């Protein structure tokens, strides 16, 4: 295993990368596919140094003590806070014990300024896992699976053919040219997908808007749900799908013919089939508006 601790701008060339894991707090991270040599470029850094490790092709970039932040499987936030409270009380009563040290280590990043701007070039086939708190992220050209967790950082994706699984609290997800399955879960982040050919798109939000422009694969599916965010789906006019859109009070518009509408207090719906009905479009909202639109063929192509 090779390991570098970076405290200032530096470029680390690497031989081989099979998998990438990034853990950052604030700042920005780029992950770009390359046929050339993999490398890590650190452009800016404030606060603690960044660790870059290469363990048999698994490239890790970020703060090593951040593990507990994203990998809480058994410990809930509440338990973590209680633990911290206990540790502080312990510190006051008993002084510096090993338990207090453990908690201090786990929470040391919190409140510290930790900011880094990092660019990483890796082979396209690599799976990518990004965990960021406030940092924004760009991922481009990757064929491997991409998993992103972000609290408030904005996530930008371009030309990904692997599956994408993104979770944010308030961070927006903007993507173009996606070919793999997409799942996005957020509280208030917006989802915008341009030119997707994914066979499955799933989006879940409370107040964010979900917007997708896509060529639905035969037997592909789109499942979007929101409480108050608007849902807009634009499809090729030749799309074939069973359509099932239901909202409590959100308005419904459809530019496709042949869909039955329901409009009564407490329920608005758009049901039916378009084209050969091979795919599936399912939208659920409470108060968010639902728009189902056919893509217009550009004038020059019509001529």
């Amino acid at each position, binding site marked *: 295993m090779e390991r570098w601790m970076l405290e200032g701008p530096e470029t680390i060339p690497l031989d081989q990368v099979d998998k990438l894991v990034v853990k950052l707090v604030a700042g920005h991270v780029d992950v770009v*596919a*390359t046929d050339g040599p993999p490398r890590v470029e650190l452009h800016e850094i404030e606060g603690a140094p960044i660790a870059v490790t290469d363990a048999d092709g698994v490239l890790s970039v970020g703060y090593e003590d951040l593990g507990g932040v994203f990998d809480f499987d058994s410990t809930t936030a509440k338990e973590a806070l209680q633990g911290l409270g206990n540790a502080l009380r312990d510190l006051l009563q008993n002084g510096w014990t090993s338990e207090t040290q453990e908690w201090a280590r786990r929470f040391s990043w*919190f409140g510290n300024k930790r900011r880094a*701007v990092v660019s990483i070039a890796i082979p396209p086939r690599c799976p990518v896992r990004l965990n960021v708190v406030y940092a924004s992220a760009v991922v481009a050209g990757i064929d491997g699976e991409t998993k992103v967790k972000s609290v408030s950082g904005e996530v930008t994706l371009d030309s990904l053919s692997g599956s994408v699984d993104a979770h944010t609290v308030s961070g927006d997800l903007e993507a*173009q040219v996606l070919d793999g399955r997409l799942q996005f879960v957020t509280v208030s982040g917006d989802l915008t997908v*341009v030119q997707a050919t994914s066979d499955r798109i799933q989006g879940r939000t409370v107040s964010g808007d979900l917007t997708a422009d896509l060529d639905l694969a035969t037997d592909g599916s789109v499942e979007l749900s929101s409480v108050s965010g608007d849902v807009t789906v634009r499809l090729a006019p030749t799309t074939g799908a069973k359509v099932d859109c239901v909202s409590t009070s959100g308005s419904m518009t459809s530019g496709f013919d042949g869909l039955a509408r329901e409009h009564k*207090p407490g329920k608005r719906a758009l049901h039916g089939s378009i084209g050969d009905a091979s795919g599936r479009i399912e939208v659920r909202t409470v108060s968010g508006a639902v728009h189902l639109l056919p893509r217009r063929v550009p004038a020059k192509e019509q001529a």
Partner: protein
Amino acid sequence: MTSVFGHGRLRLYLLKLLDEEPRHGYDMIRLLEDRFMGVYAPSAGTIYPRLNRLEEEGLVSHEVVEGKKVYRLTDAGRAELAERSDEIEALEQDIDRSVRDLAREVREDVRSSVRNLREELKAAAREVRDADREGRDDHRRPWDEIGDIPGWAETKEAMSKAFKESSKAWRTEWEHGFGGEGKTAKRVVRELVRNTELLRDEVRRAVKTHADETALREANTTIESTLARLRGLFR
């Protein structure tokens, strides 16, 4: 997306190096290293198979000089290069840039696509909605004509279910995903849950006490303001 050596661009660059003059494979490795300021150190295992393939395609040929293979461009290779001169130019520009510059371009590109799409869709939705309205006034029947107000039970159920689900899902998300965010996480979850409960109570009350249009409107207003509060928390 254009990574410096994505999509067969290394192959193209090898052709370009051979266009300058005939070279040994080793020369080409060294030249690539120089041009990439040491960042790119291609191995023999990367370069030679590509040269072999180029030779199979008839774009380069080799002769052995003093025991070493010297590669040169064939007419077919020159034709291919001439045809792809635009790509070469773009490639040379890219070579001078770092990953950061490439990513910045990607970001700007995606951002502008997203902005365009949003505007287009907004306009399209407006158009469709206007066309809808003209033909579908019958949907806007007054409430008293509807009769038994079948919507209320559904409203109540749908809202409370949706909120219960999203609140539960998000509590899980937070605990598993961002647990260590500490105070912020807990505060957000607590606020989310509290607001959800408030909203549910509000809807229940509205449904119980005055099942009319005003009540539904009030319920909706409550939802909207609650969500505005939630949004305020995160943004």
